C-alpha cells in the first residue's frame, strides 16, 4: 500500500530527440522504455505534439504518433506504465476511448491517456475547424469529452465475459451498459466494443490547467501534472485540489500530483536528488515528471546516479509491487489488490 512516504516518478519523452544513431528509431525508444522499466519508474509519458510550425515539422525525428508507439512499446516491456498524449481535437471521443481501452488490454493494464486542457494552436485547422474553439467552448467541450471517455471505459462490467462455449453464452448481456450520452457537443450511444480494462480503467493524466480547470481535474483525473513553481504556490494548489477532490466525494489521495521537472544536465546527481527531496517534502506532492532533454542518454544519469541516491534516502521504492499502472501509482482499482 502506498502511504505517501515514497515518490512516484515518470519520465516524459518528447518527439524531437537528437542522439545521432544508426539504430532504427523504434529500437532506441524501446531501449529507453526498457531502461526506465529496469529502474522501476512508474511510467513513461509519450508526447504527441501537433506541428507548431511547418518548418519545425520537417525536422522532427521521432516518426511515430503516440498511441501507435505505445502499442509497440507495450510488447517489448512488461511492467512500466505507458501513457500517450492524445488530442481531443484529433480524435472523436468514441475512437479515443476505444483506442486506449485496446492499448490497456495490449499492455495488460499499463496504459494511460494524457489529456490537456489547453487547445494546441493551429491544431484545429488541420481537423476541418479553421476557426478553432473559444477558450470557454474548449473547456466545456473537454470536460464533456473526458466524461464520455471515462463513461465508455465502464461500459462492460469486469465479469461480463463468460466464454461459455457449451451454453452458447459469450457474455452476459446484463453486464454490458449503454452510455446514451447526449450533451452540448457530442452524442454517443456506446458501449465500446472493447472489453473492460485489466486495471479497471486506463489512467487519466491531465495537464495544462488554469485555476478554472481544477474542478474538472478534481472530478476526473488520476494524475495531474503541474509546472514547477514556488513551493508555497504549489502547496496551495495541491491543498486546493485535495479539497475539491474530497468535495466530489472522492478520496483526496485518489489524485496524484506530479511536478514537471527539467533536470539540469551535467549537474551533480546528489543536487537533483536534493532538489526532488526538498520539493517532495515542502509541496507535499506525490512525485515528479522528469522532462527528458533531447538526448535519450540523459536517462542513464537519472537511473544510474540519481535513483540510487533517492533509494538510499528511502524516497523511492525498490521495485514494482504490482503489474498495472494503477497499482504502481497507488490508485484504487489497480487489478492487483
Amino acid at each position, binding site marked *: 500500500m502506498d502511504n505517501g512516504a515514497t515518490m512516484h516518478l515518470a519520465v516524459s519523452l518528447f518527439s524531437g530527440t537528437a542522439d545521432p544513431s544508426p539504430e*532504427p528509431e523504434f529500437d532506441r525508444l*524501446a531501449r529507453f522504455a526498457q531502461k526506465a522499466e529496469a529502474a522501476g519508474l512508474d511510467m513513461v509519458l509519450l508526447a504527441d505534439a*501537433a506541428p507548431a510550425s*511547418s518548418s519545425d515539422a520537417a525536422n522532427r525525428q521521432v516518426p511515430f504518433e503516440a498511441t*501507435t*508507439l505505445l502499442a509497440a512499446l507495450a510488447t517489448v516491456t512488461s511492467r512500466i506504465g505507458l501513457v500517450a498524449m492524445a488530442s481531443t481535437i484529433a480524435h*472523436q471521443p468514441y475512437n479515443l476511448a476505444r483506442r486506449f481501452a485496446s492499448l490497456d488490454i495490449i499492455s495488460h493494464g499499463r496504459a494511460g491517456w494524457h489529456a490537456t486542457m489547453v487547445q494546441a494552436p493551429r491544431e484545429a485547422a488541420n*481537423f476541418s475547424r479553421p476557426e478553432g474553439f473559444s477558450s470557454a467552448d474548449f473547456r466545456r467541450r473537454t470536460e464533456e469529452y473526458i466524461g464520455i471517455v471515462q463513461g465508455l471505459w465502464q461500459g462492460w462490467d469486469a465479469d461480463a465475459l463468460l466464454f461459455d462455449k457449451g451454453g452458447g453464452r459469450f457474455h452476459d448481456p446484463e453486464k454490458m451498459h449503454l452510455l446514451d450520452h447526449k450533451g452540448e457537443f457530442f452524442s454517443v450511444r456506446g458501449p465500446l466494443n*472493447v472489453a473492460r480494462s485489466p486495471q479497471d480503467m486506463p489512467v487519466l493524466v491531465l495537464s495544462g490547467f488554469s485555476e478554472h480547470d481544477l474542478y474538472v481535474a478534481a472530478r476526473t483525473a488520476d494524475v495531474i501534472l503541474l509546472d514547477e513553481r514556488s513551493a508555497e504556490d504549489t502547496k496551495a494548489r495541491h491543498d486546493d485540489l485535495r479539497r475539491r477532490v474530497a468535495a466530489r466525494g472522492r478520496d483526496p489521495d485518489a489524485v496524484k500530483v506530479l511536478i514537471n521537472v527539467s533536470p539540469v544536465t551535467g549537474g551533480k546527481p546528489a543536487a537533483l536528488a536534493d532538489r526532488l527531496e526538498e520539493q517532495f517534502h515542502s509541496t507535499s506532492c506525490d512525485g515528479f515528471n522528469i522532462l527528458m532533454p533531447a538526448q535519450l542518454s540523459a536517462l542513464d544519469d537519472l537511473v544510474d546516479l540519481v535513483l540510487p541516491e533517492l533509494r538510499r534516502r528511502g524516497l523511492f521504492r525498490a521495485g514494482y509491487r504490482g503489474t498495472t499502472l494503477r497499482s504502481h501509482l497507488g490508485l484504487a482499482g489497480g487489478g492487483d489488490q
Partner: protein
Amino acid sequence: MTRQMKLGAFLWATGHHIAAWRHPKAHVTAGIDIDHYIRLARTAEAAKFDLLFCEDAAGLREANVGIASQTSRSIGFEPISLLSALAVQTSRIGLVSTASTSYNEPYGLARTFLSLDHLSGGRAGWNLVTSASQIEAANFGSTGLRPHADRYERAREFAEVVTGLWHGKLDGASGSGGHDGQSFSVRDPLDLPRSPQGAPVMVQAGASDVGRDLAARTADVVFTAAQTFEEAKAFYDDLKGRLAAYGRERDDIKIMPGVAPVVAETEAEAREKYEELQELIPDDVGVALLSSYLSIADLWRYPIDGPLPELPATEGMQSRQALVIEQSRRDNLSIRQLARHFAGARGHWRIAGTAVQVADALQARFEGGAADGFNVIPSYFPGELDAFATLVVPELQRRGLFRKDYDGRTLREHLGLKRPL
C-alpha cells in the same frame, strides 16, 4: 518470372464463422489476448502471406443484445493499436487495417497510418470504408446514416486529402496552401517523415458502382466477395476496365476476392469439419446476421423455412444485399438455409476439401483472370489459419503459384506495386 498470387490473412475475432468461438479448438479469449494475435501474425508471416488484414467497426455488430451475447464479436482489439503491436513483433508481413471515412478526419488518419508504416518499416495499408451501420452512427452524434452517395463523396475527398498528405503534396510551404474542400480542411503537412514505401497501401472493398469508381481512382488493392467464377471474373474485368479512365494501368490494382477454405487431409474430413461448425449456429443468431447483410431489421418476422421476402432498396451495403438475393434465387434457399450459408463464410466463396482441391480451385480463378490473389478467411482461429498455412500454401508453392520467401521488405514490394513519386 511467372505471375504469382497474393495472399492476405483476414484476422477477425475468434474466426469468421459466426459460431467459431464455440468450436472446441477455437481460442475463445482471442479478443483480450494479444499473445494469440502475435502467434497468428507469426504463423502467417512464416507462410509468406503478403499481408494481415483487420476489418473494423466503431461499435457493436448487432443491436439485439441477446443475439450479440451469443457471438464473440462484441469485444476485440481496436485494429490500429493491434497492428502497431504486431508491427514490432513481425518483420516482413504487411499490416492492413480498416478505418472509416465517416468517423475520422483525414489529417489524423493519415498521420496514424503513416506512424504504423514507420513502426513496421513500410508495411502498412489502409482499407477505406465509408461505414454503413446505424449502430456506429449512433456513437458519433448522428441520428441516421448518410445517404450512400454522400458517404462516397465524402470518402472521395477524404482519400484525396490522405494521399495528398502521404505524398507530401498538401504542403502549404510549397505553395499549394493545404486543402480547403467540401467536407474537410487541412492547413499543415504531416509532422512525420515520408513513408518508407512511398506511401501506405490503399485498399478498398466497396463493390457498388460508385465504390468501384472510387477504387479505380485511388486503390492499390481491392477486396471483394464473389461466390462464382463468373461473378468474380465480371467484377475483375469491370474494375480493371475502369482504370484507364484515371490514367492507370491494369496491373496498378490487385484484386483479391475473399475465400473461406475448410481444409483437411481428406474431402470427407473437410466437410465434416464444416458441418461441425454449422451445427453450432443458433437459428436466431444466423437470421440476425443475415438481416444485417440485407440491411433490414425484421427478417425474424418471416417463416424461417420460407423464402426471402421482397426487400426495399437499402442505404446500407447495396452490393452485399444484391449478392444475398441473387444466391437465394439461384439456389432456391430458405431463410434458414441462407442464414447458415452466410453465417459460415460471410458471403464469401467457400471451398471445403483437401489441399490439392483448394489449390486447384484457387489456381482456376487466378489463372482464369478472375483474381490477382485471395484474402483468406479462416473459419476459426488458430486452427483454420494453421491448416491453410501448413497444407495449402506448400501446395501452391510446389506449383510455383506462391512465393517461397519474401523478395522485398515493404508491402508495396510484396504486392508488386509501384512506389508513388
